[in-house]
């Protein structure tokens, strides 16, 4: 399969959006583009599996390499392994759902969808690029759309949140930039990920560069204590914006932590593994307890995202093959789950005009579909078997338990404790929103989900179930790629 398609489709869609005449054209063009993108992502999945079945054991498949800045050795080098395929699939699912739930955006519709597609373009490009310069380029592309989406279409303290997000992400990028340039010079002027992975980088140098890259990408993925943009950014963004921020953008950071920092600098990763574990354990527990205190549904999901993303960082810090696989599964699972969660919150808010848990109640009676989805996503969040959250977290814990020393065991136990806290806040939120008496008479007139909302919710819920019921396919996709990373770590 030609990977350029994955970049071309969003780009062409964005151009057509600019050329369109009216609102309904904009919406249908974006929907058509994102559905085509979803199909090509599925096609990529099957093509990838097909190649693997044919015993094509190359690390990266469907590689393409074009020289851009020849004198600086910058190439447009793209290719995918199992991790990239999973992430591309995740992104296109969230994109379709995001387009569908934004169907009723009235304010500057054209600009809204254009920025949404640009944001998606950055994510797709990021996940398939094998050249650090190109990867960085795509990572940074998403800054403008995020800022404008929150600032223009957001709610609450939107200007503050947009500024905070843009500046913190730029700060993270600055660290990443220094790290990438360090790799460029130490590897003899190459930005190529695969080429750098084959050079031996002195451990002293790795110990300097690793924290830069890990913290830099950590800002994107809400590593404690640089997570502070997450609650404000997520809760101020419009629904589709939150879905993208939590579902995709945080995964950019996780992917970078693993693929760039850990894979290219294994000695550095070993050196700092304990610190990563401590920070992510704190993040998991802190996020969970902070969620307990939230009264606003969006803040609940934002803080619980900090907690959930902690599991994938914990998996990276454990440096075992199973834990890393689990960490990747958690990224996919959390991406789907949190996107669905924000979509449901958006649907509730559109109807009740409030996000405060205390002001709602008994909504199950008036909007059974939305509330059922709310149940599913809530149960997924607290790790109920049969849904994706359980599979991912379990894998991380099993992988962590493979270390038999006290430190790793303690960290795992601390992380596990958060599940109890998660159950408390999720059940409490669901209980008071869906059950009990209806607190406001006006709620009786509210309608259930419209076709577009139903479709969006079903797509994401189906993916969550598909992972939860049959995790083997995702495991098969991710494990060989995680193996490759482990080989590099044990080899150093």
């Amino acid at each position, binding site marked *: 399969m030609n990977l350029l398609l994955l970049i071309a489709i969003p780009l062409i869609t964005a151009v057509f959006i600019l050329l369109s005449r009216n609102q309904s054209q904009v919406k249908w063009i974006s929907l058509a583009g994102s559905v085509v993108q979803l199909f090509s992502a599925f096609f990529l999945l099957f093509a990838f599996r097909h190649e693997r079945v044919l015993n094509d054991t190359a690390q990266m498949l469907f590689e393409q390499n074009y020289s*851009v800045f020849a004198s600086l050795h910058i190439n447009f080098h793209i290719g995918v392994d199992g991790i990239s395929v999973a992430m591309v699939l995740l992104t296109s699912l969230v994109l379709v759902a995001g387009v569908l739930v934004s169907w009723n955006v009235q304010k500057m519709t054209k600009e809204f969808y254009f920025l949404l597609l640009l944001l998606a373009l950055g994510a797709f490009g990021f996940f398939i690029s094998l050249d650090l310069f190109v990867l960085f*380029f795509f990572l940074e592309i998403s800054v403008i759309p995020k800022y404008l989406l929150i600032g223009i279409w957001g709610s609450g303290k939107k200007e503050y949140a947009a500024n905070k997000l843009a500046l913190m992400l730029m700060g993270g990028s600055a660290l990443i930039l220094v790290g990438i340039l360090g790799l460029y010079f130490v590897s003899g002027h190459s930005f190529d990920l695969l080429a750098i992975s084959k050079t031996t980088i002195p451990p002293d140098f790795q110990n300097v560069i690793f924290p830069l890259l890990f913290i830099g990408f950590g800002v994107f993925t809400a590593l404690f204590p640089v997570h502070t943009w997450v609650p404000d950014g997520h809760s101020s963004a419009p629904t589709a914006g939150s879905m993208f921020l939590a579902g995709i953008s945080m995964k950019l950071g996780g992917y970078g932590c693993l693929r760039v920092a850990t894979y290219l600098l294994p000695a550095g990763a070993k050196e700092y593994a304990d610190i990563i574990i401590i920070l992510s354990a704190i993040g998991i527990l802190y996020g969970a307890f902070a969620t307990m205190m939230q009264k606003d549904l969006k803040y609940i999901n934002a803080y619980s995202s900090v907690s959930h993303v902690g599991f994938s960082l914990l998996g990276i810090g454990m440096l075992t093959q199973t834990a890393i696989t689990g960490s990747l599964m958690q990224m996919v699972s959390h991406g789907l789950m949190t996107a669905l969660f924000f979509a449901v919150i958006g649907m509730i808010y559109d109807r009740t005009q409030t996000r405060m848990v205390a002001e709602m109640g008994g909504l199950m009676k008036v909007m059974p579909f939305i509330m059922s989805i709310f149940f599913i996503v809530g149960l997924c969040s607290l790790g109920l078997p049969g849904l994706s959250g359980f599979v991912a977290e379990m894998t991380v814990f099993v992988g962590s338990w493979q270390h038999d020393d006290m430190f790793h065991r303690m960290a795992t136990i601390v992380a596990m404790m958060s599940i109890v806290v998660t159950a408390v806040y999720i059940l409490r939120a669901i209980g008071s929103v869906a059950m009990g008496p209806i607190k406001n008479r006006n709620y009786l007139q509210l309608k259930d989900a419209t076709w577009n909302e139903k479709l969006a919710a079903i797509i994401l819920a189906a993916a969550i179930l598909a992972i939860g019921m049959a995790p083997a396919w995702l495991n098969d996709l991710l494990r060989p790629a995680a193996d490759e990373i482990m080989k590099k770590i044990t080899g150093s």
Partner: protein
Amino acid sequence: MSEFFILMKNELVVTAIIFLLLFVKLGREIKNDVLLSLIQLLLLLNFVFSIFLNKEGDLFGNMFHSDPLIVFEKSILNLAVYLISLLCSGWFKRTEHLVEFFILMLSSLLGMFLMISGGNLLIFYLSLELATIPVAAMVNFDLEKKRSSEGAMKMLLSSAFSSGILLFGISIVYGITGTIGFSEIASHLDASSSIQVMAFVFLFAAFAFKLSIVPFHLWTADVYEGAPIAATSFLSVVSKGAFAFIFITALYKIFQPLQEVWYLMLVFLAITTMVIGNLFALRQQNIKRFLAFSSIAQVGFILVGISSSDNYGITSVVYFILIYIFSNLGTFGVAAVISEYSGKENIDDYRGLYKTNSFLSWILALSLFSLAGIPPTAGFFGKLFLLTAAGSKGSYWFIAIAALNMVISLYYYLRIIRAVFMDKNEQPIPKIAINAPEKLALLICAAGIILIGFVGWIYDYILSLTL
């Protein structure tokens, strides 16, 4: 004789335009817009000329030197002047003194051409004066405004002062080496005595004045604010670019033996320039003052690239300036159009601009993101290559400081974006009917900002010129 025409073609065309304007002034009245179109056509012609028949050579006993890289630099400056003549056409058509303004601007441009091509310190000094003095008169062009005269006075005094320092430096250099030719000076310098360093510091200070490197930047903001926007954009784009080019030549060719001295100076000054420029830009209200400090910060970035001292350094600086003219002129162009039609120059007045003027808002956003160095704009590539060039020296903390400064600068660029796109305003600037040349220039800027980054061979081409 033919070599004379080929090597000096750009200078000759500009001189021809100046003489033409002088004759026009003597003859009968010609309408402003006819004259303006003629000038624009000739400038464009000059730009096209510089594409053909480029070769390396010296004239007048090594006083004048030209090679393809120098012609490329000249064509960048020429393009910038062409864009300014389009962008400010509303103001040009209205003003009574169009001819005078262009004579001054083109004389200054001629001075810059000669300066870049200069082969010894004498021609360098003379052309530097030719490049500077007309600008002071241009700054004074808003005859009714007090601030304009104040700015001109400040500019004149500070340039006279810096010229004095420069002459002092030149005389010491002559005293040490007994020559004023660039190539001979280099062979006489060896960093062995402190008098050499002293001479260098004097020359360096003169450059720092022109480039408004901190702590020699104090004249910048007032002059930018007082001057008409056409003069401000000339000062901030063309003049900065020209002095950056000659600065590189001076450091890399003449003072190559003193490299260890100037590397440390550059690192120190780059950091202070970026930090001070950024911090002062944070709180500016007037868009011209704001751009003054932002351009100081940008010069800091140029210094980061210059510190590399190899071909990649030259290339990344020339490439950055090429991008910088598009992004900065895009910003100035929008400011010029708004100030021309509504008289407003404060950032607060820009609130709610998007509602009424979406085209101008998008151009402004694009230019500002390019100045901030965010992809997919070309500014991202420009800044990144400056940092990459500097990285070859291996001082990563220096790159880290520069990268963090990009974050600070993003904050104040976002302030304008926020005012334009997000803030509510009961009385936004009414819809502006932009005329064709202005629109053309803004579109050229936007195209430059979007395309240059993706056309990789431009960088490779510049690098091939430096080899």
